[in-house]
């Protein structure tokens, strides 16, 4: 059993933007993603019910290089205008060489 050190990028974003962002992630080099539905509160606005919109919590395992690209993309295109949060954690990944592109 061999593991690889990769970056786990987690992004929390308004669900209206989910599908757009997901295809951008694939373009930036991600090979997959996992998405859950969450609610949340930040500095911008509370999103507690479907009326107010929900948040998507997107996780993608990528190489350090792709992680940097994704964070730069988020910083430029999303954070100035939309409610969002994003962070990077290092993870030991099984079958990870597949995701490292």
């Amino acid at each position, binding site marked *: 059993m061999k593991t690889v050190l990769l970056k786990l990028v987690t992004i929390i974003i*308004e669900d209206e933007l989910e599908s757009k962002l997901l295809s951008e992630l694939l373009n930036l080099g991600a090979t997959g993603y996992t998405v859950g539905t969450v609610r949340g509160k930040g500095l911008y*606005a509370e999103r507690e019910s479907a009326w107010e919109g929900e948040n998507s919590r997107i996780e993608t395992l990528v190489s350090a290089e792709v992680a940097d690209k994704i964070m730069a993309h988020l910083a430029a295109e*999303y954070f100035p205008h939309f409610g969002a949060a994003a962070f990077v954690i290092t993870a030991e990944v099984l079958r990870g060489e597949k995701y490292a592109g």
Partner: protein
Amino acid sequence: MEHPLLISLLSPMVLAFVLGIIATLVKSDLKFPEELYTALTIYLLVAIGLKGGYKLSLSTFAEFWKPGMAAVLIGVSIPVWSYFILRYLGKFDVANAAALAAHYGSVSAVTFSEALAFHDNLKLTYEGYMPSLLTILEVPAILIAIFIARTSTQDKASQAGGASTKEVMRELLAGKSTLLLVGCLVIGLLAGKRGWDQVSPLFDVPFRGVLTLFLLEAGLVTGRRLGDLSKAGPFLFGFGIVMPVLHACIGIVLGKAAGLSMGGATILGVLAASASYIAAPAAVRVALPTASPTYYLTASLAITFPFNILIGLPLYHAIAQAIYAI
């Protein structure tokens, strides 16, 4: 006969809305799962669309074109003056003024359904094709408001991040509420009486009951928004009550001019008076991301919606009686 105000206030739908507000005030743990909310929304839109289409299949173009034009006129003009009032009297910035204009120009399917129930309870008739007018009114105002925001500012910053006009257009026309309303209207039209008989046990008979559940949930959300009323400020509070009354009058007058029955004209007035909270918020979040939900959701959900449901319906009915008595 009972007073219309009493009939309106004591309907299970309105009482459920009040119960929802009370539930948040006493900090109840009552909460509708998001999926239930979505399911109820889908049900309401499909039901309104199917019934509207079926009823339209019973109408002729000769009856329909004048009220249709009246609806277009309303949908096109409300966002324009709303925008300028908000921008220059209310001192809102471009994005927020446009977002609010989009909400007040578009319509609320739930307020509309309550208006039908109100008329049925009073045994007042109205034209069967009213849901078609709802459909006509939903989208144009949102497009116009966004268009105004795009053109009335050189300031790139307030546009940045927002989607392109073409994207917004597609987003709106393919948006859930438009797609279900228009799509099911067409289905109802094509499927005719045989089709309607097959689906009406689900989409017509229990409709008021579903509306009651939906208004309970609407009350829960409104209750949570009440805390934002102070942030919205007195101008928006006044706007959220005065404009609906004004729009209702315009709708009723235009409805009369277009040859609608008194019931039909009142409902057109209610449509004009109502503010969107399904289609408009979704579009605005994407097209005008710098606009604040504290303004547009609070105004449409916590001010105008309860006003219309609780006081507006009987008031507009009285206004219509006065106008039709002339």
